[in-house]
């Protein structure tokens, strides 16, 4: 299986542990990646609030690059996935709009015909690779570990832009990966709510309250760790957890794993590659629990 790899900005910026973890997991799974090095930022929904046409143009440029390669796009960030899926839907639904945008792309020799499929690594694993094929690759089962799946927003809403009608299994994809690795999924009400990251610079109190709400709920339901397919959720849930604990006047201590890190842990990828020591909330106790060293 071959994909046009779109790593996004944060996997090489604020969460530098995500990029090598994802690449290591793909190598273990035998997924062939061609990185879209010349692609730009998706706009993350921020650019779109000021100028939707501009945001869609930048994403159409990325889609055209993948289309030229004849490959589906693989993302490792829910926000990138959500923003790209929404842009792709607008472009695919409106030929006139697509033609207008292709007019902007012409100078660079690019044209988007409208045929690109964009998939998060999470969806690729459950839909294309297959859970049953993942199971035998597990060398370090996460047995006894209780993992809370935190989807966040962009990979679940709006559902009509994310193909949920055609792919109903996406709603439980994280739980199925957790269980395939030998761990137990902890169900909690906050799993598809907002982590608070988008308002961190605007209203830190509200943002950190969201971190507190979700991490405390999962912790109180017995979770040892939380896993997320979104690096922005990770930045907030991990980076601002000490503040959330101080605000709530209690200990939280819930490590937050990126999806590829969790898989890498079970597939026996070395911890230096996956950057497990790069987390604000330490993973030491957790890896001791499953019998491996950070």
């Amino acid at each position: 299986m071959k994909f046009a790899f779109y790593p996004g900005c944060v996997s090489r910026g604020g969460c530098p542990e995500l990029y090598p973890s994802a690449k290591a997991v793909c190598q273990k799974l035998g997924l062939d990646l061609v990185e879209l090095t010349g692609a730009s930022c998706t706009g993350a929904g921020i650019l779109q609030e000021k100028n939707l046409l501009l945001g869609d143009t930048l994403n159409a440029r990325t889609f055209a690059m993948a289309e030229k390669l004849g490959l589906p796009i693989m993302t490792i960030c829910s926000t990138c996935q959500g923003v790209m899926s929404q842009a792709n839907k607008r472009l695919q639904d409106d030929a006139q709009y697509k033609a207008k945008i292709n007019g902007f792309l012409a100078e660079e020799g690019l044209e988007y015909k409208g045929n690109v499929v964009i998939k998060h690594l999470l969806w690729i694993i459950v839909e294309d690779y297959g859970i049953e094929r993942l199971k035998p690759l597990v060398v370090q089962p996460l047995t006894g570990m209780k993992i809370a799946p935190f989807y966040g927003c962009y990979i679940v809403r709006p559902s009509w832009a994310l193909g949920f009608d055609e792919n109903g299994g996406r709603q439980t994809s994280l739980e199925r990966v957790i269980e395939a690795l030998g761990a137990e999924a902890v169900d909690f009400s906050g799993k598809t709510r907002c982590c608070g990251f988008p308002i961190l610079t605007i209203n830190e109190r509200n943002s950190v309250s969201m971190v507190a709400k979700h991490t405390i709920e999962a912790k109180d339901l017995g979770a040892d760790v939380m896993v997320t397919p979104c690096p922005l959720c990770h930045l907030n849930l991990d980076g601002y957890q000490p503040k959330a604990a101080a605000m709530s006047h209690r200990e939280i201590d819930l490590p937050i794993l990126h999806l590829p890190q969790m898989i890498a842990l079970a597939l026996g990828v070395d911890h230096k590659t996956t950057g497990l020591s790069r987390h604000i909330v330490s993973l030491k106790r957790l890896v001791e629990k499953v019998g491996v060293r950070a």
Partner: protein
Amino acid sequence: MEAILKVKRFNPEAAKPEPYWQEYRVEVEPHFTVLDALIKIREEKDETLSLRCSCRSAICGSCAMRINGHATLACKTKLSEMARGRPAVTVEPAGNMPTIKDLVADMTPFWSKVMAVEPWLQPRGPEPQGEYLAPADAMQHLVGVMACIMCGACVSDCTVLEIDPNFLGPAALAKAYRFVGDPRDQADAERLQALSRYSGIWDCTRCNECVQACPKGIAPMDRIMALRDRAMDAGFRNNTGSRHTEAFEEIVEHSGRLDELRLAIKTFGMMNVPAMLGLAPVGLRALMRGKMPPIFHKPIPNAQAVQKLFKKVEEAQKGDRK
């Protein structure tokens, strides 16, 4: 066939008024909506079950409630679809509002926020002889938002209201857009200034819950984003929200990708000592763990192509406005 509904009940007159779940088994027809089943339960099983409904046609907005954890209109929701793959369909009152009894939410906070955005036309100048007229094409973009039936589904599922009841919320902000976008309304500056303050347009997390919940396709979040754009255009930029958006745009235009360090500095301002001190503990912790973005930011290859696209789109939009 039999359906199982788990309904969240609450009786304020009970000795200990606490919410609790009650399970009902009821014979239903394949075409039943969740509202049909609830009415049948009330009529045949339990006359103490309280709910609010009227038109049964997704027009009046009375029966918004949470079904399987998400807000929607009970009259617009097929029971069979909600029951698929589940042992029971859960039904709760709308969220982010107090409950009066069972499935009846107290809409007082909803209405007070709608009233706070002054949802009436505020024209200026001498009164015209007849009506205040507006060209049809200037009103087209408001058709969607005017279809709001004020059911409160968006407010029920708003992730910000869940932790901050002061937030104006999606319904009131969508209503504000309806007047800011109306060419006959002359109070845009005052409205946008007020909406740019705390608890207004910049407090939305863009989580899409309101877009997903709205039974009429209003997409309140998209209206909030349009209000942000209009507020920035009107010059209300002295807030971290608009500085963040503008800095983001500038950075992506410059290098094609995000530079998180520059974004933080540009959003708060290098000379903003309290903000910088506030960021210091988080930054230091990240630095100690090797979790910092690169100090020397590298643009994408061929960043000039992205810069050209920014210019092309801007020029095309200028042309469209003329």
